[in-house]
């Protein structure tokens, strides 16, 4: 049976949820080993989080240099593991960090790379959805290790309990991977909400909010959702750029996307079109965003959202 490696990313104080999505897809094609690049002395603690999903083995590499030197340090460590263990594939989450690591590992191991896949089959054929959701593409890596990055939320992870075998490796990071140094890190301001690209539900506001995101945030909070924004809203300074959804912002693919006061420009659609269910609230019945709506409300978001927020709250209590 072929060996599939997945990169377990650490997000804050835990292992990123996407790791279990990667493992679930990896299990389609073989037996899954998670690579965990942890801060010195904290490998066992993070490895203990990898107790769910089809993960059979965890390789822990501890070093403070991963946080200090960013992408190249991780890429070198992973490449060394790949070279010595020769798995058939490496799956990594499609974040800015994940894609860059994948690209660097592809260079270091001279392997093909496919980014932003939403599915991986038993023969490692990757499925991508491109051109703003209008085309499905199937492709395969034809040389080297199949390096595939996977969009968060593309699948529902298998979370059955598991007890993977844990091994530790020590790897020397070469000087060429230490050319750029991280001086400081400010984590994203999420206001206690889930991370945008990982959230099951995203509620977004656009120019139609006129700068008042409070009804959007209130609805997001009652649903346990992340808040997104159109570029019109981020450009106006109404919401941080890190929350922009679209071609030049984040690509999200949640179970539910609620677009409030957003017209549906092609650049916005490019970032949300693959959401499973789409709800729209817009005053203008002709707004193009209605073309995507599973449930569309022609109405004022300042009236509809508070009523819906109350409705959800009433059901939950």
């Amino acid at each position, binding site marked *: 049976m072929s060996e599939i490696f997945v990169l377990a990313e650490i997000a804050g104080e835990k292992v990123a949820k996407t790791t279990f999505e990667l493992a679930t897809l990896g299990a389609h094609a073989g037996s899954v080993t998670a690579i965990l690049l942890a801060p010195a002395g904290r490998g066992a603690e993070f490895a203990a989080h990898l107790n769910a999903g089809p993960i059979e083995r965890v390789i822990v590499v501890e070093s403070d240099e991963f946080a200090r030197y*960013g*992408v*190249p340090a991780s890429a070198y460590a992973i490449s060394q593991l790949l070279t010595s263990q020769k798995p058939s594939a490496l799956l990594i989450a499609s*974040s*800015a*960090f994940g*894609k*860059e690591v*994948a*690209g660097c590992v*592809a*260079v*270091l191991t*001279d*392997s*093909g*790379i496919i980014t932003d896949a939403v599915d991986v089959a038993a023969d490692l054929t990757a499925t991508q*959805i491109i051109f703003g959701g*209008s*085309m*499905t*593409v*199937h492709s*395969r*890596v*034809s040389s080297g290790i199949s390096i595939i990055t996977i969009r968060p939320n593309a699948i529902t992870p298998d979370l059955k309990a598991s007890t993977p075998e844990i091994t530790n490796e020590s790897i020397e990071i070469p000087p060429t991977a230490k*050319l*750029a*140094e991280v*001086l*400081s*890190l*400010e984590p994203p301001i999420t206001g206690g909400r889930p991370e945008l690209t990982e959230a099951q*539900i995203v509620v977004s506001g656009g120019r139609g909010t006129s700068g008042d995101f409070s009804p959007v945030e209130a609805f997001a909070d009652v649903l346990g959702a992340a808040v997104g924004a159109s570029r019109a809203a981020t450009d106006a300074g109404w919401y941080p*750029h890190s929350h922009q959804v679209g071609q*030049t912002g*984040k690509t999200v693919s949640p179970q*539910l996307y609620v677009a409030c006061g957003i017209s549906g420009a092609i650049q916005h659609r490019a970032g949300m079109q693959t959401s499973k*269910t*789409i*709800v729209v*609230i817009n005053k203008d019945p002709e707004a193009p965003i*209605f*073309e*995507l*709506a*599973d*449930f*569309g*409300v*022609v*109405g*004022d978001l300042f*009236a509809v959202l508070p*009523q*819906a*927020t109350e*409705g*959800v709250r009433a*059901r939950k209590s």
Partner: protein
Amino acid sequence: MEGGRLDRLSVDSVLNDLDEYAVEEALRIAEAHGGNGAGAPHSVTVISMGPERTVDVARKALSMGADSAIIITDDALAGSDALGTSKVLAALIAKGDFDLVICGTESTDARMSVIPAMIAMRLGWAQLTFAGSVTVDPVAKSAVIARMTESGVEKMSASFPAVISVVEKINEPRYPSFKGIMAAKKKLMEVQTLASTGIDANLVGTAGSKSTVIDAVPRPPRAAGIKVVDEGNAGTELVNFLVEKKLI
């Protein structure tokens, strides 16, 4: 200091939107430290790989104020994957004498966001990617960026040479002036073929691509949904819809 800049030709042969930010940033870095052009301390070179019409793309960057352009166009390059593209671009960069290479964070066509990191890896240069701001110290030969990603904002520093990629929030690209457009016609544009890089044609283009597309099919349009006009209870109807769909 020299600022190199990269651009991938987008399908409609306009300057890749996101790369205008890279040209703009290169010009601003030069301008902040004595300027570029004849007699000035810095120069900005545009580097681009693509089909013949890449020339027009480079011309636009020259009219914004870049000093010269190096273009590589060759039938053998058609169909290059990220490995092939980064190999060729790295070879062109290595032949020059650049301190910084400034890229966009993603091309509008491929959208992979991997080329800048791959070029840095191939060159053995520092990578300062996803920059929302860049500060350069030409004397110390170093740069500091604010890397903006889903993990937050990281301040990163490195010595030259470095590959920087910029996010679109970094600046407002200038429009070429009439004077700039006229001046661009006289600027040096060097057009190269693959042979001049010494790279084996089998390692690039479709021949060298390490991934294969099996098929590409249009996706069915989304099924028409429900549309209601708010008459005072659409919020409640929305909640009922979410319950029915088991979303809450």
